[in-house]
C-alpha cells in the first residue's frame, strides 16, 4: 500500500499552468478541497441541527402539561416526523461527515480524499436532498407518519398531503450523497495512507470512519430501495405496501430496519472514534487495548446487520425470531463494553486534563453507558413488549444518540476546531456549554424512562391529566430548554471565537499524537508539503518522544498536483433536485394548464435529469488535468 500515496507527486498528470481561482460564494460552490467541504458540511449540518432542535423545543412545549393545545395533533405529528428525520439524516450525519472530511486525510497523511470531485458531489446532493425535505413545511405540509414512516399510515390512502413524498424523495437524494461519501472514504483510507501507516497503525478515528463507511455502503442501498418502493406506491400506484393489492406493510418494516439498525452504528462508531482520540490526548497516554478496540469496532458493525428485527418484537414474528434477535442484540453489549473499559483504562495511570473536549469525552462515558444498558434491557423481547413504543424507548435512543453521539461530536468539534479554523474556542464558554447541555440532557431524558414504564406511549400529541405523567413531563421540558441554552452558549462561543485572530499553533493542545497536529492550523490547501513517514502508532507522539519536533518526510519537496475547482457537482445536484420535485408533483392537478402540462408529462423531471446527466457528460468529456503547486511557491509561504 505504501506506493499508493505517490500519486500526487512523483507522476504528475496535470499541466503546470496557472489556475483560475474563484472567490467568495463561487469559491464555496466550486471547491473540491476536503477542508472546505468539511466546513460546508458543518454549516449545513449545523443549520439542519438547529431546525431539528427548534422542532424538539416545540414538541417539549406541547408536552409540558396535560391536554395542552399549544400545537394541534397534525402539526405535532409533522414535528415529530421531521425532528427525527432531520436530526438523523440531516443534522448529525453531516456533522460526522464534517469531522471526517476535516480530519481523515490529515490523520492518514494524505493531501486530499481519493475523489475530491465525488466529495463535493456527495455534499451537494446531501444539501439539496435536505432542502427538498424541509421545503415540505411551506409546500403543503411536512411528512406526518413518523421518521419510520410505517405503512399503511405512510401510503397515499392515509397520508394525503405530499409530506411523505418529500420524505421519500428528499431522503433518496440525501442518501445518495451519503453513499457517495461512504465509498469515497473507504477508497481514501484503503489507498491514500502515508508510507508506513499500516492499517494497525491508523488512528482510531480513521478506523471507525473506515468501518462506518463500510456500513453506509451496505446499509444505504437497502433504504434507497425501500424509499423507491414507497414512492412508486404513492405516485405510480404500485402495491408494495398496499394491503388491498396484495402488498405487505411488514415488508416495509423489514426493509426500513435492515437499514435502520446499521444506521445507529453508522452514527455511533464515529463518536467512538472521536472519544478514542480525545481521551488519549488529554491523558497523555496511548489508547489502551488498541487492537481490541479495532476488533470490537468490526464486531459491532458485523453484529449490527443481524439485529434489525429487535425493532419489530411486537410485530408478531413468532417466538423463534424473537428469541434469536434478542440474543444477537444482547451480544452487542460485549464489544461495546470492551470499548468502555478500554477508555477508562486509558485514563488509568495517565495525566488527565479536563479541557472542554475531554470534559465532553468524560461525560460521554457514563452517559453512553446508561444508554447502552437500557439497550440490553430492550433486547429482551418479553420485556420489550412493555418497553416498545413508549417513552422508555425514547429515553434509550436519546441517551445513545444525544448522550453518545452528540456529546462525542461536541468533543470532536472543540478538539479539532483549532485545526479546522485556526482559532481555539473559548475554554470557559466551552465548559459552560458542557455543564448546561449535559445537565439539561439528563433532566430531559432520565425521567422519560419512568414515563414509559408508567404507561406513557411515544408519539402522543398530548396526554390526559391524572395519570401521574404531569410532573415528569414538566421536568423533561425544563431540561430541554437547558439543552437549548447550552447550544446557544456554543453558538456564542463560535461567534466570539471567529472575531479573534487565527493564531492557533500546529499542536494547540500540546499533547497531539496524530499527524493532523504536525501541520499548520488551518492546514494549507495541499496539507503536507512533504508526505510524512509513519514509524508507529500515534505517529507524531512517537516522534515527540524521540525528541523530534516534526515528522520525517517520506519524499523530497516537489511539485504538488491539485484537483481543479468545479461547479459540476453543484449543477448535478440542482438537476436531481429539480427532477425530484418534478416527479413528486407529476400526478397533481394544477390550476394552470401550462403548469399541468409541464409536470404531468414528466417534462420537469426530464429537464432535471437532463441537467444532471448533461453535467456528467461534460465531466466525462473534458478531462480534469488539475494544476500544480510548485516547490518555489511552497517555500515562499
Amino acid at each position, binding site marked *: 500500500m505504501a506506493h499508493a500515496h505517490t500519486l500526487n507527486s512523483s507522476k504528475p498528470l496535470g499541466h503546470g499552468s496557472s489556475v483560475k481561482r474563484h472567490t467568495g460564494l463561487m469559491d464555496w460552490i466550486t471547491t473540491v478541497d476536503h477542508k472546505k467541504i468539511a466546513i460546508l458540511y458543518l454549516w449545513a449540518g449545523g443549520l439542519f441541527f438547529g431546525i431539528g432542535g427548534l422542532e424538539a423545543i416545540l414538541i417539549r412545549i406541547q408536552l409540558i402539561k396535560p391536554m395542552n393545545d399549544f400545537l*394541534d*395533533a*397534525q402539526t405535532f*405529528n409533522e414535528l415529530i416526523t421531521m425532528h427525527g428525520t432531520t436530526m438523523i439524516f440531516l443534522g448529525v450525519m453531516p456533522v460526522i461527515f464534517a469531522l471526517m472530511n476535516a480530519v481523515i486525510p490529515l490523520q492518514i497523511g494524505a493531501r486530499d480524499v481519493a475523489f475530491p470531485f465525488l466529495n463535493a458531489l456527495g455534499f451537494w446532493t446531501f444539501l439539496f436532498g435536505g432542502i427538498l425535505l424541509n421545503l415540505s413545511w411551506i409546500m403543503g405540509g411536512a411528512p406526518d407518519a413518523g421518521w419510520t414512516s*410505517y405503512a*399503511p*399510515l405512510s401510503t397515499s390512502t392515509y397520508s394525503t398531503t405530499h409530506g411523505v413524498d418529500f420524505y421519500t424523495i428528499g431522503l433518496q437524494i440525501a442518501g445518495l450523497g451519503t453513499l457517495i461519501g461512504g465509498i469515497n472514504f473507504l477508497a481514501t483510507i484503503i489507498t491514500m495512507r502515508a508510507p508506513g501507516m499500516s492499517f494497525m497503525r491508523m488512528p482510531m478515528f480513521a478506523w471507525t470512519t473506515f468501518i462506518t463507511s463500510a456500513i453506509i455502503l451496505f446499509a444505504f442501498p437497502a433504504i434507497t430501495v425501500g424509499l423507491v418502493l414507497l414512492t412508486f406506491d404513492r405516485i405510480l400506484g404500485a402495491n408494495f405496501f398496499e*394491503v388491498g393489492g396484495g402488498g*405487505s406493510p411488514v415488508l416495509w418494516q423489514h426493509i426500513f430496519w435492515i437499514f435502520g439498525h446499521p444506521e445507529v452504528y453508522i452514527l455511533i462508531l464515529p463518536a467512538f472514534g472521536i472519544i478514542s482520540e480525545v481521551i488519549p490526548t488529554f*491523558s*497523555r*497516554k*496511548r489508547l*489502551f*487495548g*488498541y487492537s*481490541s478496540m479495532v476488533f470490537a469496532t468490526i464486531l459491532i458493525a458485523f453484529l449490527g446487520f443481524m439485529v434489525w428485527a429487535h425493532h419489530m418484537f*411486537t*410485530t*408478531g414474528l*413468532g417466538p423463534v425470531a*424473537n*428469541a434469536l434477535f*434478542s*440474543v444477537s442484540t*444482547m451480544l452487542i*453489549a*460485549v464489544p461495546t*463494553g470492551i470499548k*468502555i473499559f*478500554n477508555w*477508562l483504562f486509558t485514563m488509568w495511570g*495517565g*495525566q488527565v486534563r*479536563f479541557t472542554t473536549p475531554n470534559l465532553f469525552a*468524560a461525560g460521554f462515558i*457514563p452517559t453512553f*453507558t*446508561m444508554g447502552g*444498558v*437500557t439497550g440490553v*434491557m430492550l*433486547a*429482551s*423481547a*418479553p*420485556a420489550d413488549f*412493555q418497553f*416498545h*413504543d413508549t417513552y422508555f424507548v425514547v429515553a434509550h435512543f436519546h441517551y445513545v444518540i444525544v448522550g453518545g453521539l452528540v456529546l462525542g461530536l461536541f468533543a470532536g468539534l472543540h478538539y479539532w476546531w483549532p485545526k479546522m479554523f485556526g482559532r481555539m474556542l473559548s475554554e470557559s464558554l466551552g465548559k459552560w456549554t458542557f455543564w448546561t447541555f449535559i445537565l439539561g440532557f439528563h433532566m430531559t431524558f432520565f425521567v422519560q424512562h419512568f414515563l414509559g*414504564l*408508567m*404507561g406513557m406511549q*411515544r408519539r402522543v*400529541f*398530548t396526554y*390526559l391529566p391524572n*395519570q*401521574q405523567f404531569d410532573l415528569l413531563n414538566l421536568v423533561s421540558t425544563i431540561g430541554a430548554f437547558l439543552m437549548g441554552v447550552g447550544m446557544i452558549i456554543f453558538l456564542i462561543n463560535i461567534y466570539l471565537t471567529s472575531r479573534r485572530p487565527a493564531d492557533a499553533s500546529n499542536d494547540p493542545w500540546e499533547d497531539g499524537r496524530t499527524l493532523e497536529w504536525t501541520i499548520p492550523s488551518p492546514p494549507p490547501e495541499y496539507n503536507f508539503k512533504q508526505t510524512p513517514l509513519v514509524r508507529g502508532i500515534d505517529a507524531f507522539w512517537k516522534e515527540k*518522544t524521540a525528541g523530534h519536533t516534526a515528522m520525517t518526510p517520506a519524499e523530497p519537496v516537489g511539485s504538488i498536483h491539485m484537483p481543479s475547482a468545479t461547479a459540476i457537482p453543484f449543477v448535478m445536484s440542482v438537476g436531481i433536485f429539480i427532477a425530484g420535485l418534478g416527479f413528486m408533483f407529476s400526478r397533481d392537478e394544477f390550476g394552470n394548464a401550462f403548469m399541468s402540462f409541464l409536470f404531468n408529462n414528466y417534462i420537469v423531471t426530464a429537464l432535471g435529469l437532463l441537467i444532471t446527466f448533461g453535467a456528467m457528460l461534460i465531466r466525462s468529456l473534458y478531462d480534469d488535468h488539475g494544476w500544480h503547486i510548485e516547490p518555489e511557491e511552497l517555500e515562499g509561504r
Partner: protein
Amino acid sequence: MMKTWQAVKRLLPMMSVFALILAGCGREDLSVLRPQGPVAESSLGLIKLSITIMIVVLLIVFAIAAFVMIRFRRKPNQTEIPEQVEGSFKLEILWTVIPLILVVVLAIPTVKQVFAAGNDHSNDKNAVKVKVTGHQYWWEFEYGDYGVITAQDLVIPTGKDIAFELITKDVLHSFWVPSLSGKIDTNPAGTINRFSFSAPKEGVYRGKCAELCGPSHGFMEFKVKAVSNEEFEKWIESRKAPAVLPEDPALAKTFKDQCLQCHAVGDQGIANAPDLTGIGSREAIAGILINDDTREDGAPVEENLKTWLHDPQSVKPGNLMPNPKDLGLSDAEIDGIAEYLANYKLD
C-alpha cells in the same frame, strides 16, 4: 464463591429499596411497574432482573470512571511522560468474559419467556376468545363464541385466559394494557397476531394504542373491565337483549336514519363505527371522556356525550365521525340523543 455470595447479600438491600421505588411509580391500573396479572408480572420479573444487572454494571463503570478522573488528574508542574501502556491481555479478557456471562444470565430467562409468551390459547376451551380490531381511533371487541360485538370497553371475566386475535381495519395500531400485559401490533389481514392474558383481580385497567396511527393516536384509549364470571355472563345476556330506541318517535327516526347508518345498537344498525349498545354504562366516551363525576377529570356521562356529539373533531382530531350538525341535526336533537344514549345502560 463465598465472595460472590457476600456481594449478592450486600446488593440485596439495595435491590429491595430499588424495587420499592419502582413499585411507587405510576397508577395501579396503568403502570408497567405495578402489574395486576401474571403476564405483566413475568415481564416485570425480567425487567427487574435486567435492571439489577445493569445497575451493577453502571455502578462498576461509574466507580472506575470517578476513580480515574479524580486520581489521575494532571497535577500542575507534572512534566514527566506517563507510561504508555499498550493494553493488558488479562484485563481485556476479563471485561470480555464478564459481560458475556451477564448476557447469558439475561438471555436464558429471556428465551424461556419468549417461548412461554408464545403459548397460544386460541384452541383452549376454557379461554374466552376475543377478536380485537383496531380502527382510527377506536377499538372493536368481538366475542365470537357469544355472538357479541362491543367497543372501547373490553369486559372480561377474572381468572380466565383471554385469547386475543388482533387485526386492523386501516393503519397499524398496537394493543397495550400495561398493567396486564405487554403490547402486540394489530396488522392487516394476512399477518394476524394472537396472544393472551388474564386478570385475576376485578377492576378497570387502562389500555392504549402504542403505534403511531394518525393525529389522535394519543387519544386511542380503551378500558379493560375485569368482572366476576357471573357478572360477565350477565353482561353478555343483557348485551344480547333487543335494542332500545329513543322513546320519542321523531328522535328515534333521526337516530335510525343518521346514527345507525354507521353505528349499531343491539340488533339494529351497521357495525362500521363503534357499537353503541349500553354506552351509558361504559367507562368513558370516545375512550377519553371519563364518565365519573366524582373525579376531577371526569364528568357525568350525558355531559360527555354532549361534548362529543356537539363537536367530535375538537375531542379527537382526525376521527371519522361526521359532525352531527353537518348531518342536519339540531342542537335539541343532539341533546336528545345524548340523553337517550346516557340512559342506555346494561346491568
